[in-house]
């Protein structure tokens, strides 16, 4: 696209508008363009660097077709605590594999294994997203960088576009579209994760304002180790870590053994140890060959050590558990169709913006399943949106802007302390003793405090020009926090990354999802039990 078009002013029209430029957005744009649609991709940041994937190095859930695939799906399903859907898992792994082969065909520089075969089960974030941008451009997609959406447009029964601002110029934009794909990422609740700065649940708020529901929002208790006060929430090197107090005393697990392997099932132990005091790690279980692979394969993980002058294989360094919200957690916009349609006509959701329960259930999915989910759901959503746009045709005249909290205060706008709001929201969603180990009483008290925060935002928060983005981010995180706590309070059991200290057992009666909806009044309701839901679908 030309620079002229980028500056072409506030009104434009397209068949499919993709909001967000991480992998899900990129694949959605490619699928829609491949189906013959005119596509605009509007990214809050820069399509190629924005989102959690670009600065990372992610595995993929990569299983070739064949008999082994059914076993692989079954093995994965066993780890989803009964809430995933095998049919969705099959079609996700199938589509993701096809997309990986597409990358091979396009010439993405995959490494080769010892037998000389291409190894496609890993994607290096900076290279992958750099490559994907080129393909998206080559497909004729109009890319609008630094163009965050602030709100959706609706004609009363369908979503018909979005409106937002240009961060560079401060000017407004408004794009009418036959269908909109939300690929805006998850919500990191203002935790400083790798690539998480822009992950503020923007799509959740926009979708809810259009009438969509969310699901799985209680599965926000996923935490990953990172060097203290760094952005590197990458767990892989901790597979070879031992854990200590500052004086070198080994930390013992509940069975009295020295605590090791920070990505296994040790997160409970680490969380407890961190509640007692600072924890230090050393990657001393890595043999020299592994040290070399780690250094060359995960160079981002070594930036904090190298820049602090620490040798992590021989010296202790302080670590934290960083909260990962719905980024590595699971919740998001509830999907209503195989094409990643939401319950609102014309609105589609993909990647972390969508609930990932279909493939990860109550678990995190780590990097691998989540990366494959982004590829597959992006593809489904882009194709679905293109189909919707074609069937519906353009109705350009209509388009009521739906944005409320943070944009159009319900009462008189007045100065609101942004930093205080951010701290109040973090206090309910980040601390280990509130969000890793949850209690019914704690959640009830937290919800009450959040109602006060929400009232302040809804009634008074507003901003001008480019500052509107921050106001909307705060409103989105607040809405996400309220949904998360509401679902967590309703789920009276522990399951996957939802841990109730007061209800530590898993209750078979709760093998069902929880849907949340509503802004002024948050409502949570249990979905059909998983078995019934599958029967209904078949």
């Amino acid at each position, binding site marked *: 696209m030309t620079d002229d078009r980028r500056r072409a002013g506030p009104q434009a029209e397209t068949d499919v508008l993709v909001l967000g430029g991480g992998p899900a957005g990129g694949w959605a744009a490619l699928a829609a363009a491949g189906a013959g649609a005119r596509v605009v991709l509007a990214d809050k940041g820069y399509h190629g660097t924005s989102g959690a994937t670009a600065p990372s190095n992610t595995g993929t859930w990569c299983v070739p077709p064949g008999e082994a695939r059914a076993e692989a799906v079954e093995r994965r399903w066993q780890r989803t605590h009964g809430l995933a859907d095998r049919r969705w898992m099959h079609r996700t792994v199938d589509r993701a594999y096809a997309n990986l082969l597409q990358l091979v065909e396009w010439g993405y520089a995959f490494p080769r294994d010892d037998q000389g075969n291409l190894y496609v089960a890993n994607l290096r974030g900076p290279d992958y997203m750099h490559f994907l941008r080129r393909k998206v451009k080559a497909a004729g997609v109009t890319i609008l960088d630094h163009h965050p959406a602030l709100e959706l447009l609706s004609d009363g029964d369908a979503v018909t576009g979005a409106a937002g601002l240009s961060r560079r110029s401060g000017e407004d934009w408004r794009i009418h579209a036959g269908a909109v794909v939300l690929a805006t990422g998850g919500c990191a609740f203002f935790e400083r994760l790798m690539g998480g700065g822009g992950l503020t649940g923007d799509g959740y708020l926009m979708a809810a304002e259009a009438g969509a529901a969310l699901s799985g929002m209680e599965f926000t208790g996923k935490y990953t180790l990172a060097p203290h006060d760094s*952005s590197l929430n990458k767990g892989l090197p901790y597979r070879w870590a031992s854990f200590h107090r500052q004086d070198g005393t080994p930390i013992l697990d509940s069975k009295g053994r020295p605590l090791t392997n920070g990505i296994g099932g040790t997160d409970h132990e680490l969380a407890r140890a961190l509640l007692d005091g600072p924890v230090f790690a050393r990657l001393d279980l890595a043999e020299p060959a592994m040290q070399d692979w780690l250094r*060359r394969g995960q160079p981002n993980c070594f930036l*904090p050590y190298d820049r602090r002058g620490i040798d992590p294989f021989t010296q202790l360094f302080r670590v934290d558990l960083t909260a990962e919200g719905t980024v590595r957690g699971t919740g998001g916009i509830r999907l209503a169709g195989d094409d990643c349609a939401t319950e609102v006509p014309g609105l589609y959701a993909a990647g972390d913006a969508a609930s990932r329960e279909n493939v990860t259930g109550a678990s995190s999915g780590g990097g691998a399943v989540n990366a494959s989910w982004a590829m597959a759901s992006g593809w489904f959503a882009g194709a679905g949106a293109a189909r919707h746009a074609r069937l519906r045709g353009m109705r350009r005249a209509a388009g009521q802007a739906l944005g409320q909290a943070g944009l159009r205060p319900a009462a008189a706008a007045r100065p609101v302390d942004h930093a205080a709001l951010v701290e109040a929201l973090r206090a309910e969603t980040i601390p280990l003793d509130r969000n890793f180990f949850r209690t019914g009483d704690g959640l009830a008290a937290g919800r009450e405090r959040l109602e006060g925060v929400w009232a302040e935002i809804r009634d008074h928060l507003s901003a001008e020009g480019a500052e509107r983005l921050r106001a909307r981010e705060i409103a989105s995180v607040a809405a996400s926090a309220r949904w998360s706590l509401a679902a967590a309070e309703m789920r009276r059991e522990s399951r996957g990354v939802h841990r109730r200290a007061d209800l530590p057992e898993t209750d078979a009666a709760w093998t069902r999802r929880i849907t949340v909806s509503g802004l002024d009044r948050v409502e949570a309701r249990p979905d059909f039990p998983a078995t019934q839901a599958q029967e209904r679908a078949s």
Partner: protein
Amino acid sequence: MIEIVSESRCIRCDICVRVCPANVFDKDDEGLPVIARQQDCQTCYLCEIYCPTDARFVAERASGPVPVTEAQIEAAGLFGSYARALGWSRGRAGGSDRDPTMHIRVAQV
């Protein structure tokens, strides 16, 4: 967070202003990128590797600035160190075909 844009290394190409996902940089009157919104930096290090002249340094601290000078970074050889570790060069992608992560994933189980 982003700490240093080296005036002597910078060729005023504008790439960092465009690619920063958090919109941290502005251009000054001479076309030099300036760190306009440091607190918005998400410490993703990507501006370092996209820079064709290795003119920037991101410190590892995510929550706030650290005192560091260009001379210190130059002396420590840290300009461009992340790009070299990846195999990126002059702002161009490269090196993913030499990524040994497959060995780590096999051993991780």
